């Protein structure tokens, strides 16, 4: 997907907080291409150790799994209004799979989340054979 500038939609969530949203889509075929060309080198250089272990255990699901998590990182960077995916790729960990997915932020991403008053970031992932989608929603309390 073209790396568009960050956009964060906001709307009132409660009288004392609001929700901020970042989203992204990623073409699964781009992940298939990277896996074909570079194999586990691609996985180990970009994704977390936990994500690499999942790919090793579930190779048939690797492309969709990684495409979802690539989209997740882009969505969260948009939410945080940070634009450098390469620099911040290690600051975002997507832990778990399915409905139990959690976001773990470290480094500059964690600092930015604190600066923006995000108390919690929720993540929803989905994919078809062709497209992976990630929506990140943050509770902003100030």
């Amino acid at each position, binding site marked *: 997907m073209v*790396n568009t500038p960050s956009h964060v939609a906001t709307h009132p969530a409660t009288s004392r907080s609001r929700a901020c949203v970042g989203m992204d889509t990623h073409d699964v075929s781009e992940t298939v291409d990277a896996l074909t060309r570079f194999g586990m080198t691609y996985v180990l250089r*970009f994704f977390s150790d936990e994500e690499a272990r999942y790919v090793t255990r579930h190779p048939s699901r690797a492309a969709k799994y990684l495409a979802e998590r690539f989209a997740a990182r882009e969505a969260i960077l948009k939410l945080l209004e940070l634009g450098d995916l*390469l620099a911040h790729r290690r600051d975002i960990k997507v832990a778990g799979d399915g409905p139990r997915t959690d976001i773990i932020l470290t480094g500059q991403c964690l600092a930015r989340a604190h600066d923006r008053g995000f108390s919690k970031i929720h993540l929803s992932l989905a994919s078809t054979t062709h497209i992976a989608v990630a929506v990140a929603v943050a509770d902003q309390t100030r």
Partner: protein
Amino acid sequence: MEKITTTIRSVLDTHAFLAVPISSLSDFDDLYASGMTSHVSVNVMLALEDEFDVEFPDAVLRRSTFESINAIREALLSLGASDEP
């Protein structure tokens, strides 16, 4: 043209999926503005590592390192890649 620049252009031609021919870009043109996505920049990084037998350390793994042919050249030279023909 230096060998290193020729090789970078070849890698970009194969991996960057730019919206315009690589031959139409100067060494200083913005590759992201020419259609290179963030995901593709990862592929470009890995292909450059293979081609030049180097590894980009985390300290230089940032968007700006891959924003132009000249920026890539400077990064590769800093990692010890040769620019001899």
